[in-house]
């Protein structure tokens, strides 16, 4: 339980931040439907206050420790011997995403000021409910609590797409597709969570406890797969991505911003918080496949984005590409890759969020998003053009914007890891090709974004409907300005952001190294001499831990089969191999 401080001082910050939007939603319930403006203002007020309160997390966050901070822990549901806790906390990994959430919500509320004219109250309620769900999922340290919030996110989003979608015929299809895809994924995770709680958590679902318990190798495989499918759908990784373009195209502007900005990050966050630390052997086993899918996603998303006739679909596919980078960075399992991955989550949230806002602004004016309908807007809307350009450049990763920092860290992390590190040990010596191919995506990124920008903004104004479009209003400028500000701040001074995640990422990476070294040490000391020799042959480099661990597992498997265990998967040799990891934590009796 080294991740939890021993003396937990009572803290209510996380609860306040998480449930303040819910209070707002509750207040809104009592407003009469006709009071559209009051509904807007109340929602904005609660969103802004939530953001202001959440700043406490940024300033009060203690650097240099991987421990969870602002921890709250108490029992929530007791059911027989099962115990579900109300257990919250943030660390360097979740902190920035929490802040991104509280930062984007007021912007989204403000962006819907004019766009949503019917069922305003309900729209705002869904938004605030969604914020609570997202924040809850991000700060939960109890797997069951996490699952509750995770599922809670679906409901408001489903209604946002289904009710406020742009095309009445397609929006239901999109909403149901979104719902089914994510629902199917979550089912697997639920099984996994229950199994984990029963077998390793002592009938609780405490994340730190399960992390410390150390999970046996074989269950790790299917558990990882269950979690990975859930999160991969959410990310979305190729080939689970097809719900995304539909959902984005049909969702109202605010829904798209939240979807791209935060909901997708839930997938990558799930990987870095749960799937990867809990199941290192599973990660190692499935890493080649997942890394390949990540790289395919990068290139595929970019190429398909290039040929989209609809701006929103284009941006949706660009998300597939960008989140492929995030996944690749996480799999690099070194400081650059993982920090870059988390940084990229934030910067993608900002730049793609802004892109959807921008698309929404021209949609409000023209009620179309087809690229061919536009052209020459730069002349009619110069301020809009400047904002659009900056966001576009951030999206293609121009140095001095936020996009570059994340992308570069990911690529150099993946390259390093592919040459001599986790990726190369798990996937073979040619793994640096992942980074090289992924870097090709940077070229295609420039192609699709600039081509789109050029067709929409440059050239002569050929369509007479575009001649008298209004430039940005003050409200619209206020919506975009903070994002643009952060695009530059994060590009020029990324260090404060990187430093906040540093300790947690270091712990994350060391966690891996430790797990594998342990397995190896065990092999060397207890197994047959020739096998020990085999494991100890090379004068080892740090990154070789993976390869060794892999050999060790293979060796153990042989031993396992030879020993003909009475129950599959619970062979004595394997158990002894895992014991050291679980030292100090009493192993629970097997379920019969």
């Amino acid at each position: 339980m080294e991740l939890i401080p021993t003396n937990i001082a009572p803290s209510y910050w996380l609860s306040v931040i998480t449930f303040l939007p819910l209070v707002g939603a509750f207040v809104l319930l009592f407003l009469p439907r006709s009071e559209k403006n009051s509904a807007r203002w109340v929602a904005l007020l609660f969103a802004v206050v939530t953001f202001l309160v959440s700043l406490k997390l940024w300033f009060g966050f203690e650097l240099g420790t991987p421990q969870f901070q602002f921890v709250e822990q108490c029992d929530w549901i007791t059911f027989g011997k099962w115990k579900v806790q109300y257990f919250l906390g943030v660390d360097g990994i979740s902190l920035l995403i929490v802040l991104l959430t509280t930062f984007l919500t007021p912007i989204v509320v403000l962006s819907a000021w004019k766009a949503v004219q019917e069922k305003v109250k309900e729209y705002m309620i869904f938004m605030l409910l969604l914020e609570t769900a997202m924040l809850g999922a991000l700060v939960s340290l109890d797997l069951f609590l996490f699952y509750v919030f995770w599922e809670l996110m679906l409901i408001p989003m489903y209604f946002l797409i289904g009710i406020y979608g742009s095309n009445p015929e397609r929006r239901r299809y999109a909403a149901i597709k979104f719902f089914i895809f994510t629902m199917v994924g979550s089912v697997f995770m639920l099984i996994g969570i229950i199994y984990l709680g029963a077998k390793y958590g002592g009938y609780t679902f405490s994340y730190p406890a399960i992390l410390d318990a150390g999970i046996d190798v074989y269950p790790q495989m299917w558990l990882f797969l269950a979690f990975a499918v859930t999160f991969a759908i959410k990310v979305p990784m190729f080939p689970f991505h097809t719900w995304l373009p539909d959902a984005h195209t049909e969702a109202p502007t605010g829904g798209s911003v939240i979807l791209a900005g935060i909901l997708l990050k839930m997938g990558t966050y799930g990987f870095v918080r749960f799937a990867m630390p809990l199941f290192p052997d599973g990660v190692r086993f499935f890493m080649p496949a997942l890394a390949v899918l990540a790289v395919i996603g990068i290139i595929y998303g970019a190429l398909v984005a290039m040929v989209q006739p609809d701006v929103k679909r284009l941006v949706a596919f660009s998300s597939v590409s960008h989140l492929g980078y995030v996944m690749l960075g996480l799999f690099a399992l070194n400081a650059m890759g993982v920090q870059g991955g988390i940084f990229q989550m934030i910067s993608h949230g900002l730049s793609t969020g802004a892109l959807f806002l921008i698309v929404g602004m021209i949609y409000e004016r023209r009620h179309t998003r087809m690229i061919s309908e536009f052209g020459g807007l730069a002349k009619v809307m110069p301020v809009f053009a400047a904002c659009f350009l900056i966001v576009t450049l951030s999206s293609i990763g121009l140095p001095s914007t936020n996009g570059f920092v994340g992308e570069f860290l990911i690529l150099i992390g993946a390259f390093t890891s592919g040459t001599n590190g986790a990726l190369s040990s798990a996937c073979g010596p040619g793994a640096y090709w992942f980074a090289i191919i992924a870097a090709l995506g940077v070229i295609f990124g420039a192609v699709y974004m600039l081509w789109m920008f050029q067709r929409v903004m440059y050239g002569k104004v050929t369509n007479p409907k575009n001649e008298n479009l209004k430039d940005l209003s003050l409200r619209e400028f206020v919506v975009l300005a903070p994002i643009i500000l952060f695009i530059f701040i994060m590009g020029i001074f990324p260090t404060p952001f990187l430093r906040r995640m540093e300790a947690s990422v270091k712990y994350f990476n060391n966690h891996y190294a430790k797990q594998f070294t342990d397995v190896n040490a065990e092999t060397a000391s207890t197994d047959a001499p020739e096998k020990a020799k085999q494991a100890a042959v090379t004068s080892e480099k740090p990154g070789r831990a993976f390869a060794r661990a892999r050999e060790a597992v293979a060796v153990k498997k042989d031993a396992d089969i030879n020993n003909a265990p009475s129950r599959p998967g619970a062979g004595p040799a394997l158990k002894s191999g895992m014991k050291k990891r679980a030292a100090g934590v009493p192993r629970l009796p097997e379920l019969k």
Partner: protein
Amino acid sequence: MPLELLQLAATASQTAAGSGLPTGRMLIWILLFPLIGMTIWGILGKRLRRETVGTLASLAIGLSFIFSLGFFLAMLVREGHGAYTYTYYTWIAAGKWFSIPFGLRFDHLSAVMALVVTGVSTVIHIYSIGYMRHDHAYWRFFCYLNLFVFFMLMLVLGDNLLMMFVGWEGVGLCSYLLIGFWYDDRNHPAETNEQGTGNAIAGKKAFIVNRIGDFGFVLGIFFIFVTFSLMTNDSAELQKAYAGAAKQLHVTDVEQITPLKFSHLKAIIESWPEGSHLPVMVLTLIGIFLFVGAAGKSAQIPLYVWLPDAMAGPTPVSALIHAATMVTAGVYMVARMSFIYVEAPTAMMVVAGIGALTALFAATIGLAQNDIKKVLAYSTVSQLGYMFIAVGVGAYAFGIFHLMTHAFFKACLFLGSGAVIDFMHHKQDIRGYGGLRKYLPITHITWVIAAYAIAGLPFLSGFYSKDAILEKAFEFAPHGMHWFGYAVFGMGLAGAILTAFYMTRVTALTFWGTPRIPEEKLATFKKPPGTMKAALVILAFLAIIGGYINIPAWWSSDHKGGQYFVTWVQHWTKDKVAEERHFVQHGGAAHDEKAGHDEKAGDDGKAQNDGDKEAAEKPHKEGSEVHEGMSLGMLAFLLTLLSVGVAVIGVAAGMAKYGVKKTGAVPPAEGEKLTPLHAMIKNKYWIDELYEGTLVDPIHAGSKYVLWQGIDVFIIDAFVDGLAWFTLRIGAWVRRLQTGLIPVYVIFMVAGLVAMLIYFFAYGILEMPTFFIKGGGK
């Protein structure tokens, strides 16, 4: 963060107030003036008067120039001519091994570059006040132009590869914005197709081709990091090299050494332990990857295609970005990374070879272009080829020398063409010019000076730099292969003849002979304003005297009779240790840069030299004999004579074909039948069409029909929808048994789930079957 900036400003002004030499911390001001300017024009420009914007924008760059000059002079008086460096803050850091500072470096190499960039920029800003006088987006133009100078200075002054990359992509962005400046094609009706309008397409093409180059650049950075970082490479040699580098750099801890920082990387390579080989293969790879980046930015084969199209931008932009400064960034980068190239002769061969090919190839295309700016564009590509010959054969200082002289005369030519275009109401076809000497006398004189400078006629700047490059190319012998040097030399020489020829052609067709449009119409055209003329005169003057900077002795400060300019640049590029090892390992490249201005280096080199000659004789006897047969001085003299000869031949041939009296020798109009050779050259060997057909179109069609409509819609979506349909069928079947809709679905799901859970928990077979892991784990 803003706090850091404020602190910075405070200390900078503090030091400025105190007397004496500038401190390194003040370097940021060179960058800040254009940045501040850009911000003001961007926000307020629309409300300010045109003259105010133009004048103040020029002033901002002028201040940058004055600061650069100040630092340069301070370096001159400083003991040991030491470089100015300053690290402001940590820009990007992740983990123990990866930390990139925001640091600036004003050393011998960047001093030259900064002076050229700010100097030429100032002149071109002044010119633009006149040239853009009718444009309603005046403020936007100066905003972009200031931003460009900012990024260019970042590229030049950054002290690590990543800072350089910021500038590198930043100038690409400004190039994109400025090429597409007239994005509605109001001044330059380019062809419009379904993709949009011409100028914006050209801008996009420039950015994307540059990105392809940047891909190579980034890979180069990756390979450098992986090879020279202790994180991934803990070999004994590298650790020794780090220890040596730490001593050389006066740092206490090897962890403070960042291999992506120029000075640190140089120190690591220089401190490579004696007796062990550098990883030459990887260095070669790094050299080639970095050169891919350079080829993109500096328009070399095969990535040159964007530069001719980039002429769609306003002419001052062509002069500043696409001739004098940005496109030379690749040359600067190779010179900056020279310590890697000298260790990797194969990479040098690639650089020199591509440079020579481009020099010749682009010159041939230049022969048959009728757009005055296109001629100059291909001539720029060709001249950049010469610069790459220089840096490829290891004559880095001469490459930078040619970069500087080229900046003067090519900017002068472009601005001259701008004056002509302005005068001719934005007509750019030289077939419609003729006899303009009478109407634009100052433009004519400055043009002729610059044209003969580029042609390489004696006593003008281009002669000194180009001649030196060809001489060095002649002596180049990578891996002892003298024929390679001769081939490069030959191509360079052939390119020089063509350069002299096409420059004469375009000069004659524009300024000489009789006008090809009615004279009474010409007489009504407006003459260019004074600011434009002033800029032309300044640049023409520089085009004359630029070459004399490198003339030895008479103002050399070290009194060793060395070539002053070259010696100055060689503070960075001349790498003694590396050079010696280069000789030992590869032999042959004996005469490369043996100017002998440093006695110790001369002696050492000589000792090595004798051995090398023997080694070189074996693979290539003839080559060595040439060198044995005559003294170096004699050889140099003959080569100089040869290059003067070809320049004169080229000019004479041009005169003979298009000269003063031959008014009939106008190139054929559009639609006229051309000879196959002429057609091939005029259509630029159909390279654009080739790229379009083999790369762009297939990728586009493949993405659309195979990836999107094939995989995405036809396979994945169809599968998902099929699954949904199947589920619905089951639901319909269930509905007949019960009444619910979706709840039924959910109930069944949960029920199944519970059943599964019970089953699994009861029998514990959730453990992965062993054969699965065994099968996949290997």
